[in-house]
């Protein structure tokens, strides 16, 4: 009762405003999110009671008002950013890592490790619409990774154990139709390009990535960048790279090389053939392009997770190496990329950098921050 009163007070204090400069910071250990704004670089509110957010991710309604927060414990919450309140919440699985929102904003999809599968929900009410068990060609349930939204009210996802890519037509969300493709060994994450044409899944079990041209009818998966890093032995991987949060710049895809200290460059107009690579300070986790494509920012797996590097895409060289703090977990650009926010998990703060001068613009205290998500994602495929 007291909690509700405090929440109401917070809500009343929030002035009328738009949502284009809003965002969410996950406080992973506290099960809480911060609602932030990127214009004045301030925290507006916090929202508690979101469960286990240790690998939480967020998608946004197309009006940028509602954040759908996917908790590790299977909790899915719809948070109103303007009133800083949870409007709806369901426990939809035992172990979940993220989700997607359909092209028209009507359906939210969750990807689950346990029980392995995908579930569809009405975006306005979180009413369950469909349950898609990820039973692969091996007859067993797989963990689902790399769920993204695509043009044509479709979704794509990958099955870790069975090595498949599923393309899901969710135009009728109570009766989704599924195309099943062979991907390769152990897809660990995937991305959709910003135009929604290509779906690319990273493979842990083999060198290379699985690529699907979604403009092909029917879509087929083929292997690209096979045998990258063949000349040197792959290193142990202490954190799986994330592909979501893609880097497309200069017509090229910039990708983390799993098990190697480099970023791969693939020429999307030339069969996704490798067009080069950039040596880095560690094994890349996130490789993210500034919205204008001039820079690519990279963070790294343990034990190099205190370092961030910036690649100039014109010269393909690292132009800046920074040690912002211990445990850099995530990065997010402002909508037009003049600033980058990064989370310092072990130092309990979020840093904001000017991407032109690399000066630090602001520091926001945050309890074990992990993911940072801005509402600009609402207007992008695969985010």
């Amino acid at each position, binding site marked *: 009762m007291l909690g509700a009163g405090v929440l109401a007070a917070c809500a009343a204090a929030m002035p009328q405003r738009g949502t284009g400069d809003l965002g969410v910071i996950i406080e992973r250990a506290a099960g809480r999110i911060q609602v932030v704004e990127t214009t004045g670089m301030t925290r507006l509110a916090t929202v508690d009671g979101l469960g286990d957010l240790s*690998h939480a991710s967020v998608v946004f309604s197309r009006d940028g008002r509602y954040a759908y927060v996917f908790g590790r414990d299977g909790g899915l919450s719809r948070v109103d950013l303007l009133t800083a309140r949870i409007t709806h919440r369901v426990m939809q699985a035992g*172990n979940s890592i993220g989700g997607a929102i359909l092209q028209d904003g009507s359906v939210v999809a969750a990807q689950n490790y346990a029980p392995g599968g995908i579930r569809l929900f009405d975006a306005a009410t979180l009413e369950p619409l469909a349950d898609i068990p990820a039973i692969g060609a091996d007859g067993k349930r797989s963990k689902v990774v790399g769920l993204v939204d695509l043009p044509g009210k479709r979704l794509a996802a990958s099955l870790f154990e069975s090595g498949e890519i599923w393309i899901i037509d969710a135009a009728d969300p109570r009766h989704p139709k599924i195309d099943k493709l062979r991907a390769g060994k152990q897809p660990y994450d995937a991305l959709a390009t910003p135009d929604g044409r290509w779906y690319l899944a990273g493979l842990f079990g083999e060198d290379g990535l699985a690529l699907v041209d979604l403009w092909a009818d029917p879509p087929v998966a083929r292997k690209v960048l096979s045998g990258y890093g063949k000349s040197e032995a792959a290193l*142990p991987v202490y*954190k*799986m790279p994330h592909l979501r949060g893609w880097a497309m710049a200069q017509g090229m895809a910039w990708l983390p090389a799993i098990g190697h200290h480099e970023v791969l460059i693939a020429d999307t107009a030339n069969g996704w053939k490798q067009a080069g690579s950039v040596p880095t300070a560690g094994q890349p986790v996130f490789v993210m392009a500034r919205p204008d494509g001039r820079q690519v920012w990279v963070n790294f797996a343990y034990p190099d997770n205190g370092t961030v590097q910036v690649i100039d895409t014109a010269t393909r060289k690292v132009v800046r190496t920074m040690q912002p703090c211990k*445990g850099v977990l995530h990065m997010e650009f402002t909508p037009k990329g003049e600033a980058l926010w990064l989370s310092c998990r072990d*130092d309990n703060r979020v840093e904001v950098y000017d991407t032109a001068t690399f000066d630090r613009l602001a520091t926001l205290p945050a309890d074990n921050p992990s993911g940072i998500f801005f509402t600009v994602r609402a207007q992008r495929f695969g985010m």
Partner: protein
Amino acid sequence: MLVRGIAALAACVVGAVAVAGEPPPARALQLAHLLRDDCGACHGMTLQGGLGPPLTAAALAGKPAEGLAATVLHGRPGTAMPPWQPFMTQDEAAWLIERLQAGTPPTIPPANALSGR
């Protein structure tokens, strides 16, 4: 009497397995961070599992501690489990396994988690 006997026996068994004993507090805190944040990257911060299997006492029940410690130190070929030998000693791996199997994995105190506030 019987209960006390079992308790004493249990103490002996624990004592026998815990060849390493407790690491110093500062190192134990580092290992807690390593467990929650870095092992947790795959096994989950709460150790309930993720891309990697859960590390709960129930999940590890009946598995020989030495084998588990060897997996931690040397990894498991053919899976995503990497070798952690560069970052901890054999005794520290044994201590982590002992704590995990006992269902009392080291935690990060909230005061520490909030130190930046």
